[in-house]
């Protein structure tokens, strides 16, 4: 998997209730604990689903991550198909 750290951050938010809670309070602080490029960090903080998918976030990490953000399925699919 490319963009390993980026996937790791989103996967940790999906999987770990403590990290998830901290992420929803202060995403930037949680993101600073991961080895992200400037572009990756920006895409996470902006919840830029199109860019996250293009960067190589796995569908089974990105879709659960967006479900946590209450993103409707049609919006998700439109974003990744851009």
């Amino acid at each position, binding site marked *: 998997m490319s963009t390993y750290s980026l996937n790791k951050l989103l996967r940790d938010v999906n999987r770990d209730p403590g990290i998830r809670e901290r992420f929803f309070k202060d995403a930037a602080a949680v993101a600073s604990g991961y080895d992200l490029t400037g572009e990756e960090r920006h895409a996470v903080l902006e919840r830029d689903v199109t860019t996250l998918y293009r960067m190589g976030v796995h569908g*089974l990490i990105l879709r*659960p991550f967006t479900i946590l953000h209450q993103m409707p399925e049609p919006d998700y699919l439109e974003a990744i198909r851009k």
Partner: protein
Amino acid sequence: MAIVYACAGSHAPGIRAWTERAPQAQVDNLFGGYAAVREGLEAAKPEIVLLLTSEHWANFFEHVGAFCVGRGASFEGPIEPWLRVENAEVKGDPEFATRLLEHCYASGFELSFSHEMKFDHGSMVPLSFLTPDMNVRVVPIMFNTLATPRATSARCLALGRMLRPFLDAAPERIAVVATGGLSHDPGERNHGIIDTDFDARFIADMTSADPDRLSRYSDADLLKAGAGTLELLAWICLAGIMGEAKARLVAYEAVVPWATGMGIVSYDRAA
């Protein structure tokens, strides 16, 4: 004969998390199918469910093995707060898991093992239908169906054949449950597209008395029907365990709102 029951079923999260988005007739057919296999499983009074399952980055990430046996005393799940399946500590059986691993290693199959496995929808959905009271011990074998490279169909079939003598000799009453598939591409560009022709072919092969037909599915064949279709490696392993016993189709529905070809098969004769 220690295998007292065997079945396989799909675990797309929508069946629990957004049940009501599917047409009622499809919901009824699949819930009815799961109720029927639950009845069969309960009547067989298993002490252990050997769960051939896949996961979605709940455990595999930093470390990935082709097959990983859950050796913990319990498994917490589901990790998804949105699944609408109640949180549970599912009891494991470290002693049985250890015996199973010893048999595997003595037979040339060095499976990974984990003491701290978590369950996501891949395990909690089928358990919520089959053992909703979570009162049967579960020993999972997680299949890596995500990261490349992955085990081949032939290897999964061989894994099943290797497990059979161990299960036959075990003193416990064992239900073998495989889960995953069928055609689906979750979270990816073809999310919602279901390859019903593939599903019909696979079910025909799964319900034939010739499990070797299943070893012909290449990684690319499965992937073509959607990334989640690789989960059928667990079904293929079940076919290896069950050998000449024939599976029967219980229910199949291509459920677009759940983005998955949903199937359930069971074995009339235990083993």
